[in-house]
């Protein structure tokens, strides 16, 4: 007969065993020392599906301490279903305080967005990365992409972007727009919209990236050059919301989600749920600014 005691399994603080935490930590230090370079790591299975934020979780759980205040968003929303599940997991395994308030959080995990509010040097943001290899779209083999990174041979990438321009009149890359980090490595910023991409450049905050299924982690330290790939005559552009506004707040200068009512009517709403709450309640916020957003202001917003 099965004895019940056999099934009482106590999990370590932050779930992951200490040996694996140490391995991730060692590799994080290396990742920070070589900005934009993808470092392979063991990436043990988690009780969360591969492709559903395991890489982000590995990093979160390797860095989190008892005093951290944890926030997690998916598509900018604190209430997105997968984010809720991961929040409960992290909270259950660490007992850490969780928050929706961007300013209160010390450790933020995110999928597909950077917060609208500017993050500080007291905060760390961890990105869930589905496909860490930006060159995969031009080269399917790993041993070849590794070589391309090693030699900083990025011609194929530029050719592909330029072809897109020639064919369609613009670089058609949407979210996850490839960036050049510290003038050395082309990096996938994870599928954040182009709206967020410029906020990686010369930021206050440490950005950590985890791709669990692909077993890679990488980093952008604060105050690091992060430039979207572009050409002299063809420039990177962010999504243009100048003709739309948030139907709840009337606010324009934020990444907006396009939503449809039952009648098929199109509306827009601020994507960052905490930012939306703060704007609705007329609270003070300190938003990121960059030259692309500032251009929008010239539209007379």
């Amino acid at each position, binding site marked *: 007969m099965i004895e019940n005691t056999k099934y009482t399994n106590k999990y370590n603080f932050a779930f992951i065993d200490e040996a694996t935490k140490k391995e991730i930590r060692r590799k994080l230090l290396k990742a920070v020392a*070589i900005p934009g370079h993808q470092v392979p790591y063991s990436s043990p299975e988690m009780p969360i599906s591969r492709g559903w934020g395991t890489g982000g979780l590995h990093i979160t759980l390797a860095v989190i301490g008892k005093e951290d205040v944890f926030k997690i968003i998916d598509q900018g929303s604190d209430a997105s279903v997968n984010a809720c599940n991961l929040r409960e997991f992290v909270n259950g395994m660490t007992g850490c305080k969780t928050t929706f308030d961007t300013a209160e959080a010390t450790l933020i995990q995110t999928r597909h967005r950077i917060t609208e509010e500017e993050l500080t040097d007291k905060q760390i943001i961890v990105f869930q990365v589905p496909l860490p290899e930006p060159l995969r779209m031009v080269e399917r083999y790993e041993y070849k992409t590794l070589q391309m990174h090693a030699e900083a041979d990025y011609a194929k990438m530029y050719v592909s972007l330029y072809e897109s321009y020639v064919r369609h009149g613009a670089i058609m890359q949407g979210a996850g727009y490839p960036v050049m980090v510290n003038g050395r490595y082309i990096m996938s910023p994870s599928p954040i919209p182009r709206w967020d991409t410029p906020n990686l450049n010369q930021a206050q905050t440490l950005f950590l990236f985890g791709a669990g299924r692909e077993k890679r982690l990488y980093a952008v330290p604060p105050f690091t050059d992060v430039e979207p790939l572009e050409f002299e005559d063809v420039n990177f552009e962010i999504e243009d919301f100048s003709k739309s506004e948030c139907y709840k707040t009337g606010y324009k200068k934020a990444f907006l989600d396009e939503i449809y009512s039952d009648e098929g009517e199109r509306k827009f709403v601020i994507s960052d749920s905490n930012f939306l709450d703060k704007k609705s309640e007329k609270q003070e916020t300190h938003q990121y600014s960059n030259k692309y957003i500032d251009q929008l202001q010239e539209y007379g917003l």
Partner: protein
Amino acid sequence: MQTELHYDTVFDEQQHFRLLLDSMARPGKINTFPAMEIMPPVGLNQASALTGFALLNADTSYHIAGYNGADIAQYLLVNTASQQASIDTAEYIFLPENHDGRGLEKARVGTPVYPEDSATLIAEAELISEQVVENSLGITLKGPGVNGEARVFVSGINPALLEYLKEQNVEYPLGIDLIVTDKQNNLFCIPRSNAFTYIKTN
């Protein structure tokens, strides 16, 4: 040689790692390990020992380039289960104060595909400070993690070691990362991504 009883392998380790991460992400930024009741052997300061505790385990290896190596090795073995290795294979290399960098040319610098397969130096100094201190080198850092320029003053560090580091990091991303610790539990980092200059302050 005893296992340190006042060291918490879960929570102290996590807290110390965060300080290391912060210093590595912000070259030149001085962080301080909280005071702890640990007794590393002569030749290993507390901050270096705590750095070792935070990073070493049975899956990794280290080399002691200073004196009293046998005692230190025994101490690290009982506290981390990490193994000693030769200088050309070790992942972490512990250096005493004023080490002149000799022998370190053999340390791993990684490969073009895997530049992270490289050694990290944990070098001891007398004192690390934001202000000028006696007999110090003023190190100015520039690069990722630094807003413009960062300045840090260190005594008990040999200019020859910094020269060695510069040479190893010429072929970036190949290179070596440096963690400097002092007797006051302070630390700061020079990752290979950063360029630096130094001057004798007095």
